[in-house]
C-alpha cells in the first residue's frame, strides 16, 4: 500500500510545510539576502500548492481521513482529531496556495523592503487556510479561523504609513475577534449538547433529534461568526475598510480566499452537523441563506457603483460576489454548491488580477482615485487590458471558469424552482462589473465627464475621503486634535500629503512596470481560461459537491462505520452540461453586454440626471458605511439577534 502511506503523509505535510517555512522566514530573515527570502517563500508556497493539488486529485473518489497520531475512533466514538479531506476542501486550499504564490511574486518589487515578517505572515495565513479547509474537528476549525484572522489583521496594517489601513485593520480585528468569540461560544454549547468536537460525531448525535433552544443558539453563534468573516449583510461593514486600504498583495489573499473561507465554514458545519436535524429544516434554512445572499449581492453591487476609489470599489465588488456564492451554497443542493465552488475559483483568479492591475496603476501613477486618473492610463496598456478582461470575467465571460460556475448555478436555481434568482445574479454581476468597466473607460480612454460621475462624491461629507491621496483627512475632520498634535509629526504629514504610503511602500514611479508585477495577473487570468476549457470541470465539481454535502456518507467515512456509501453524485453529474450549450453562452454574453451597458450609461454625459437621481437615492446606504467601529459592532449585534430569531424559525 505505498499509495496510502504516501497520501497519509501528504495530508499533514500540506499544513506543516508552510508553517515550517514561516518559522524559517521569521527566524532567519536577517541572515538571508532579499532574493533568497523571496525565492524560499515562493518555493514553500508552490510546494503547498502541489501537496494540496495531490490531495484534491486523491480524494476525488472518496474522502481521505487522517487521524493525528493514529487515534482512530473506537467503536464509533471519536477520541482523536481528524482531517477529512474532500476535493472541495482540497481545491479551496490549492486556491489559497496559488494566490499566496501570486502575492509573493508580486511583492518582489512592490515592497521596497519587505522584511521576513511579511513572508512569515503570508505563509502562516496559508497554513491556517489549508488547516481550515481540511479539518474535520470543530475546535480545530475555530483555531484555524483565528489563525487566519490574526495574520490577516497584521497584514492589513502592514507597513502602514497612513491612518486608513490602520483604521481598516482595527475595524477588521474588532469585528472579526467578536466573530471568533461567537464561534467559540457556539463550539462550547454544541459540545455541551453532544459531548463531541468532531463534526461527524456531532452530526450523528443531532441526526433525527428535534433541536432545542441550546442547539438553535449554538447554530446562530456559529453561523454568525462565519458570516462575519464572510462579510454578509449586516456583518459586512468591516470589509470595505480592510480590503480597501490593505496593501495590494494582501488584498489578493483577502478577496480570493479569506471571506470565502467563512462561507466554506458555514456550509461545512451545516452539512456535517446540523443538516440531519429532525423536522426538515432545509427549506426554511434555504430561505434564510438566500435572503442574506441576495441582500449582500445587491448592497455590494450598488456600493461598488458609487465608489471612485478603485481599491474600495473592488472591495465592494468582492462583497457582491460573496453574496452570489451564498446564493449558490444557500440553495443547499449539491449542484448549487458545485456552481458556487467553481465561481469562487474562477472569480478569485479574476478579482486577484483586478487588484494586481490596480496595484500596477498605484505603483506607476501614485493614485487609485478614478477621477484623478482620468486619461492617465496611457503607457499602461497591458494593465488596462488586464483590468477590462478581469471585469468581463467577473461578468462570466465564456469560456473562463466563472462562466462554467455560473451555468451550474443557474441550473441549480432552475432545479430548485427559483429561476428568478438568475435575474438577481445577472443584475448584480452586471452592476459590479459595470463599475470596474466605467473606471477603466475613464482611466484608459478618457471617456465620461471631467466631473465625478456620482455627484455626491463631491459633497461636504465626502470631499476629504480619497483615503489614498488625501491623508490629511483627519486634520479636516478634527482641526482641534490636529492642532494639538501637529507640532511633532508635521513633516511626516507633508510627506504623507504627496502620497506618504506610496513613499514608504516602494520607490516612486520607476520608468517601466516590473515583470513580476505585470505577469502575475495575466497568469491568473490564463489559469482561469485554462480551467474553463478543461473538459469535465462541471462533472467533477458536481461530484465533489455531492460528496461534500452528503452527511451520512461523510459520517460513515470518518467514524469508520461503513454503512451507506452509495453516493448521490451519479444523479447530478449528468446535469451540468449547460455551459457548452448555445443558450448558456448566450446568457453569459448578454450578462457581459449588460455590464458594458452599465459602464456606458455611467460614462455617458447625457445620463447625468439619471446618475444624480440614483446617487441621491442611495445616499442613505453610503451614510451607513461610516467607518466607525462602534457602528459596525452595533450592526453586528443586531445581525446576531436577527440570525438567532431566523435560526429559531428555520430549525424548529
Amino acid at each position, binding site marked *: 500500500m505505498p499509495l496510502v502511506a504516501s497520501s497519509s503523509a501528504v495530508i499533514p505535510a500540506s499544513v506543516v510545510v508552510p508553517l515550517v517555512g514561516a518559522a524559517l522566514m521569521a527566524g532567519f530573515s536577517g541572515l538571508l539576502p532579499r532574493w533568497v527570502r523571496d525565492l524560499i517563500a515562493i518555493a514553500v508556497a508552490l510546494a503547498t500548492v502541489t501537496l494540496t493539488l495531490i490531495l484534491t486529485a486523491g480524494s476525488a473518489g472518496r474522502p481521505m481521513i487522517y487521524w493525528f497520531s493514529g487515534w482512530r475512533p473506537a467503536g464509533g466514538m471519536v477520541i482523536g482529531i481528524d482531517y477529512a479531506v474532500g476535493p472541495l476542501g482540497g481545491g479551496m486550499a490549492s486556491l489559497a496556495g496559488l494566490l499566496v504564490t501570486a502575492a509573493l511574486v508580486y511583492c518582489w518589487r512592490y515592497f521596497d523592503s519587505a522584511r521576513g515578517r511579511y513572508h512569515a505572515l503570508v505563509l502562516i495565513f496559508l497554513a491556517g487556510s489549508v488547516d481550515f479547509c481540511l479539518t474535520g474537528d470543530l475546535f480545530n476549525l475555530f483555531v484555524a479561523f483565528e489563525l487566519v484572522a490574526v495574520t490577516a489583521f497584521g497584514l492589513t496594517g502592514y507597513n502602514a504609513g497612513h491612518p486608513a489601513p490602520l483604521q481598516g485593520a482595527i475595524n477588521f480585528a474588532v469585528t472579526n475577534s467578536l466573530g471568533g468569540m461567537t464561534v467559540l461560544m457556539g463550539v462550547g*454549547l454544541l459540545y455541551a449538547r453532544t459531548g463531541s468536537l468532531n463534526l461527524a460525531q456531532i452530526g450523528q448525535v443531532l441526526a433525527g433529534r428535534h433541536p432545542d433552544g441550546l442547539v438553535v443558539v449554538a447554530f446562530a453563534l456559529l453561523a454568525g461568526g462565519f458570516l462575519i468573516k464572510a462579510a454578509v449583510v449586516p456583518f459586512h461593514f468591516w470589509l470595505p475598510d480592510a480590503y480597501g486600504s490593505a496593501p495590494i498583495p494582501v488584498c489578493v489573499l483577502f478577496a480570493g480566499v479569506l471571506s470565502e473561507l467563512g462561507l466554506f465554514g458555514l456550509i461545512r458545519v451545516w452539512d456535517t452537523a446540523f443538516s440531519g436535524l429532525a423536522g426538515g429544516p432545509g427549506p426554511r434554512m434555504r430561505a434564510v441563506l438566500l435572503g442574506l445572499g441576495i441582500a449582500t449581492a445587491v448592497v455590494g453591487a450598488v456600493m461598488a457603483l458609487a465608489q471612485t476609489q478603485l481599491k474600495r470599489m473592488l472591495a465592494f465588488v468582492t462583497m457582491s460576489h460573496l453574496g452570489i456564492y451564498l446564493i449558490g451554497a444557500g440553495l443547499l443542493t449539491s449542484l448549487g454548491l458545485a456552481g458556487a465552488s467553481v465561481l469562487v475559483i474562477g472569480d478569485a483568479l479574476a478579482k486577484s488580477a483586478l487588484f494586481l492591475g490596480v496595484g500596477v496603476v498605484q505603483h506607476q501613477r501614485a493614485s487609485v482615485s478614478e477621477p484623478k486618473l482620468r486619461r492617465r492610463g496611457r503607457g499602461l496598456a497591458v494593465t488596462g487590458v488586464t483590468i477590462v478582461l478581469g471585469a468581463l470575467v467577473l461578468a462570466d465571460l465564456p469560456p473562463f471558469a466563472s462562466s462554467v460556475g455560473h451555468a451550474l448555478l443557474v441550473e441549480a436555481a432552475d432545479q430548485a424552482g427559483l429561476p428568478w434568482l438568475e435575474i438577481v445574479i445577472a443584475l448584480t454581476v452586471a452592476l459590479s462589473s459595470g463599475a470596474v468597466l466605467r473606471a477603466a473607460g475613464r482611466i484608459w480612454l478618457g471617456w465620461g465627464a471631467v466631473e465625478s460621475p456620482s455627484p455626491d462624491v463631491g459633497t461636504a461629507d465626502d470631499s476629504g475621503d480619497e483615503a489614498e491621496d488625501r491623508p490629511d483627512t483627519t486634520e479636516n475632520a478634527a482641526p482641534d486634535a490636529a492642532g494639538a498634535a501637529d507640532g511633532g509629526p508635521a513633516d511626516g504629514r507633508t510627506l504623507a500629503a504627496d502620497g506618504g504610503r506610496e513613499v514608504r511602500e516602494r520607490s516612486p514611479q520607476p520608468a517601466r512596470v516590473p515583470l513580476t508585477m505585470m505577469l502575475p495577473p495575466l497568469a491568473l487570468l490564463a489559469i482561469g481560461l485554462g480551467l474553463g476549457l478543461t473538459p469535465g470541470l462541471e462533472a467533477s465539481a458536481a461530484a465533489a459537491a455531492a460528496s461534500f454535502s452528503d452527511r451520512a456518507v461523510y459520517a460513515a467515512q470518518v467514524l469508520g462505520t461503513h454503512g451507506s456509501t452509495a453516493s448521490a453524485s451519479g444523479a447530478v453529474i449528468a446535469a451540468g452540461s449547460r455551459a457548452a450549450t448555445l443558450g448558456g453562452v448566450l446568457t453569459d454574453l448578454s450578462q457581459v453586454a449588460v455590464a458594458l451597458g452599465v459602464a456606458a450609461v455611467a460614462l455617458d454625459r447625457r445620463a447625468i440626471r439619471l446618475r444624480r437621481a440614483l446617487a441621491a437615492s442611495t445616499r442613505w446606504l453610503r451614510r451607513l*458605511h461610516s467607518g466607525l467601529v462602534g457602528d459596525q459592532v452595533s450592526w453586528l449585534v443586531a445581525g446576531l439577534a436577527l440570525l438567532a430569531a431566523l435560526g429559531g424559525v428555520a430549525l424548529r
Partner: protein
Amino acid sequence: MSALAYGVVGWLFLIGIYGVVSSRNLIHLVVCLSVAQSATDILLLEIGYRAGGHAPVFVGLPAHPGPAVDAVMQALALTDVVIGAAVTALLLALVVQVHKRAGTLDPDRLRATRD
C-alpha cells in the same frame, strides 16, 4: 450557582460589547474587547464544570478521587486565552501606530475609511 455563572457570562459579554460600541478611546475599546472575551472563557469553564469535581490532573490522586471536571473545555479556554492575548497585543500595536500617524485615539475623529 450555575445560573449565576451563566448570568455572569451574559453580563460580561454584553457590557464588553457596550463598551466597544460606546468607546471614545481606542485603548479603552481594546480593553472592552478583552472583557467580552473573558465571557467566552467563563462559559467554557462552566460547561466543563462538575459539582465536586477535582482538577483534571491524574497524577498522585487519592484512592477514590471522585469525578474530574472536563479537561477538554479547560484546554479550549486556555487556547482562547492565548488567542485573546495575541489579538489584544496586535490591536494595541495598531493603536500606537494610529496615535503616531493621526494624532488621535478617538474613533469618531479618526474617520479615514468613511464612505
